[in-house]
């Protein structure tokens, strides 16, 4: 019989609580005038939320390393698209 690691319900609910806290933080901090720091905070929180979903809800934490590589590859390649394009748009 195949045994897969089964996380406790508590873990999932805890992650959800953190996600909700992060949502509150990102919404709340948006109303505080911090200039460009607002965007940094918001995107940082978005990344944190995404990581929580991927590591816990999508089981990447306990998954095969190859899965983590392909998960990262998607984001990494998107970063390449945006980053290298910006060498044009930021230097015109």
């Amino acid at each position, binding site marked *: 019989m195949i045994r897969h690691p089964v996380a406790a319900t508590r873990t999932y609910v805890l992650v959800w609580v953190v996600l909700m806290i992060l949502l509150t933080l990102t919404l709340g901090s948006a109303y505080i005038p911090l200039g460009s720091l607002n965007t940094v905070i918001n995107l940082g929180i978005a990344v944190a939320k995404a990581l929580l979903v991927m590591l816990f809800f999508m089981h990447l934490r306990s998954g095969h390393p190859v899965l983590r590589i392909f998960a990262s590859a998607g984001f990494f390649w998107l970063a*390449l698209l945006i980053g290298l394009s910006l060498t*044009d748009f930021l230097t015109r």
Partner: protein
Amino acid sequence: MPVRATYLNAGFSLWSWLSTHDHKRIAILYTISVTLFFFIGGAAATIIRLTLISPSGDLVSAETYNKLFTIHGVVMVWFFLIPSIPATLGNFLVPLMIGARDMAFPRLNLTSWYIYVLGGLFTIGAMIAGGADTGWTFYTPFSTMFSNSRVIAAVAGVFVVGFSSILTGLNFIVTIHKMRAPGMTWFRLPLFIWTMYATSIILVLATPVLAMTLALIVFERLLGVGVFDPALGGDPLLFQHLFWFYSHPAVYVMVLPAMGVASEIITCFSRKNIFGYRTMAFCILAIAVIGFLVWGHHMFVSGQSVYAGMVFSALSFLVSVPSAIKVFNWTATLYKGSIAFDAPMLYALGFVGLFMIGGMTGLFLASLALDVHLHDTYFVIAHFHYIMVGGSVMAFLGGIHYWWPKITGRIYPDRWARFAALTIFVGFNLTFFPQFILGYLGMPRRYHQYPPEFQVWNILSSAGASILAVGYLLPLGYLAWSLRYGARAGPNPWRAKGLEWQTPSPPPTDNFAATPVVTEGPYAYSATAAAHG
């Protein structure tokens, strides 16, 4: 005497073919479809070359000429070159070469062929409805705002066929990761498998960007507003960045499989292990990765910032390095090998030489100062045709000939095959070398008229094209002949290494009687042993 069960006689009805899950049958479905599209794209090229015989270019109207080079590009890129080696030879050989019974997802494999056919129908429909005149690159704002041709229909065809590529790539990646036979470690894989893997990585990461970019064109054209619209503050260059982010890696989709085929053929017909196996494998991955970083070299004179131009130029020089290393290693493999000049080897050698010329001319184009003069001239056309036709198509034909006995169980007539290979080589060079000169002299691409002083080179090129056409038609003849009258092939007529040669020709549906166990590298040839027969 009972007939041996093979994948070919496991059902003779049309339905048994159209509903198959067998990767080998799907490969044949693809082979028939891509060949059909090759000749459609070739027909467009024929009319183009006929038009260009005269400087007034009035065989067809200007609008028709625009539609001809558009359909030539769209069909050749998306319906021939990108699927060619992966969907035909790749589909047939990947499970065999790794010792598996089939792909990881056979039904997905069949689905990807149906998606290909659907995309093809859209594109043929677009052609019949009048065609698009934007060029295969669909640049905005012409494609979104000013073209009065069937842009949406053509784009829809490409959008659909992209999903075929994505699913094929996904299937290859999972199959190569998870379905290898015992003992088949990563560094015992044939280099062809490495190229299928790298190609698949490109397909799954790049094609989705194209799909969305095409969707953006369609909606901008339909709605009259969009993110590329300068009147609203949009930037047409944004389209070019998104388009070439896919389309440059796409050219590595077209060439990496050809490199894989070349490695298989050169080792077999030199009776030698490949020189620098691990280096070759890493170069394959390097080409795939660095290939994603160079797309701005298509945009040097588009209005892109000159600093971005410098970055992309430097990266474009970098991507040539692993390709050059591969050429050195093929050469070193040939050195002191026991060389036989069978048709597959003629194609493989042709590939190496012509790819090298195409690649070196790429360096000219990667140089900012030179590209200012060469961009949008025939120099560019010659450059990419040397790689895609002199390189990829020759390797494709080489692969078809090399694995023909395995796929069909028949031997083709060798003299005809070698004659066709030489005809193609001569015809190809006569067609495209004059185009380097035309580009250097300043003849722009996508023009149906040109100054009279360019005529002699255009005539040479068109003459070459007629010879090339003969060369491409010959295999249709003798390969078809061999299906009926060719000698029956044994499991390993070339005495090659590789798991695909350890099973009968044609293979049974399940590929192997028993799962093979791998104990050695992929090219355990010995030149001395071959010399003694």
